[in-house]
């Protein structure tokens, strides 16, 4: 376990030192990583720990990102902390009824139902032009961080210094909270449901209730991640809710390894940098990614994490 702590400590130090060494271009890639790492931490509570594959997490990511856009553009809210809280609450509030419907099903039915809800939200964002800006989306104005108004700071500096450290701290907090959740009695119940829901129920675990709670927490994480991504691009649009975006998150989770706590975050890190590299080389990046996904599923179902770690922090 101490070896694992050293690795985690080294990773945190590397993240903190990164903007000092890397170009601003790569430092902003890390902002994407912070957002997606939070999203897939949440997604994996549902997938890796509870055994439910959501193909609709783009809904909650978009919800969080649009919350940031609405609050900054329409309501004059600039506090990033308030934005994150509103995003989490909105994500959970939408997930509560959606989850109540979806968790009655498992496997492919659950995946398809979540996908359907995400596409419903995508249509809403497209059609309600006067509210959401339709396919043009909405602007996200620069937020204040911890009450610190940074409007006068040059954009690159804001993103690679202030926002970089802010977002990395949010990820750290989100990861610590998730670590506690998966190590709790609640987390054990989720894993028992993943392994054998019929047996879990016979031992007195309320399967539907636990699945629902995991869904709501997972959605809140996705919304927080989405809100954190929004100021990086300064723009949100309906493609955030599109199903291929959910597919990317599932890809990240599989790439890194869903049976390990840190697997999905590793997957997000590799995905973001690989996508950038492959896209600059050939236009058919999805083709390359499809081949990678197939190779992982066939040759390394444990994902990249299976090459890095054997068991510490294992979800199983």
């Amino acid at each position, binding site marked *: 376990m101490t070896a694992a702590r050293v690795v985690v400590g080294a990773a945190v130090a590397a993240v903190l030192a990164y903007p000092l060494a890397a170009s601003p271009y790569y430092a902003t890639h890390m902002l994407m990583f912070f957002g997606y790492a939070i999203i897939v931490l949440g997604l994996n509570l549902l997938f890796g720990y509870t055994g439910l594959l959501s193909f609709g997490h783009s809904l909650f990511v978009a919800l969080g990102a649009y919350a940031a856009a609405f609050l900054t553009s329409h309501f004059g809210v600039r506090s990033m902390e308030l934005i994150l809280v509103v995003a989490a609450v909105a994500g959970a509030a939408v997930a509560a009824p959606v989850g109540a419907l979806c968790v009655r099903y498992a496997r492919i039915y659950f995946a398809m139902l979540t996908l359907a809800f995400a596409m419903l939200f995508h249509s809403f964002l497209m059609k309600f032009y006067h509210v959401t800006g339709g396919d043009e989306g909405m602007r996200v104005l620069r937020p204040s961080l911890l009450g610190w108004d940074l409007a006068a700071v040059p954009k690159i500096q804001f993103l690679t210094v202030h926002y970089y450290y802010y977002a990395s701290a949010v990820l750290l907090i989100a990861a610590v*909270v998730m670590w506690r959740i998966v*190590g709790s*009695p609640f987390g*054990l119940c989720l894993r*028992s449901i993943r392994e054998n829901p019929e047996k879990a129920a016979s*031992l*007195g675990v*309320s399967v539907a209730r636990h699945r629902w709670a995991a869904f709501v927490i997972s959605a809140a994480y996705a919304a927080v991640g989405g809100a954190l991504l929004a100021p990086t691009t300064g723009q949100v649009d309906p493609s955030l809710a599109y199903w291929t975006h959910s597919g990317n998150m599932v890809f990240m989770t599989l790439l890194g390894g869903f049976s390990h706590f840190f697997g999905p975050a590793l997957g997000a890190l590799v995905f973001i940098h690989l996508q950038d590299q492959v896209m600059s080389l050939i236009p058919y990046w999805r083709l390359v990614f499809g081949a990678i996904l197939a190779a992982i599923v066939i040759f390394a179902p444990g994902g990249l994490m299976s090459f890095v770690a054997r068991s510490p922090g294992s979800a199983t």
Partner: protein
Amino acid sequence: MSRDAAIVEAVGIRKLYGDVCALDGVSLAVREGEFVSVIGPNGAGKTTLINVLAGLLRPNAGTVRFKGRDIGGIGPVRLARLGMARSFQLVSIFPALTVLEMVQVAIVARLRRGRRLFAALAADREVREQALEVLALFGLADRAELPSRHLAQGDKKLLDVASAFALRPEVILLDEPTSGVSTRDKTAVMETLVAASKRIGIRAIIQVEHDMDIVFGYSDRIVALHQGRVLADAPPEVIRADEAVVAAVIGRPPEWRPT
């Protein structure tokens, strides 16, 4: 024996699957301290009866009561809370969870700690100690940290039952507790199980079992089902002497063994 003493009581149970009548007016009462076996050929309705008693299926007619409460179709979670637990015919475990974790699930559920989101399970001594106690009763304590899937087949069966015992039930339903266990290990499994029931203070055991040596060796009473009806409900020695039951349900004298 008075009716009041029955802990589990089924009266006139009828269960239909479409046009097929799986149970047709089955009545059964299980009293304090009894070990009751349900036997019958395939398709006699044994599994349906277990599922009705386990609150999974609501009968089309008749009532099933546990401690005087109607439990028809109330579901496994509420039944577990009322004090009735079950094991499954096919080994039912959490393969990737450790042996200790598997039993902890039942204890977390019993102590109603499943909603604790941020408490550290590893620091919960009460849950851990109770789990280890149960594992010790089943001789599995030395393999507590082993992933359940790595246990031998007979031990998987024991773990399945142990997790149900960890609920500290008053009544336990065992659906073929020795199926899939080698003939040599069957008696050992049953001995462990009966000893553990006494230690935990289980008030009654109801089992479905095919192995007639086990059935006749451990039961206080045997209920023979045939085509959805109760053919006989009597102590083992009476069943053994009943030629009609032996012919219809057992198919051969219970002492008979292949050479």
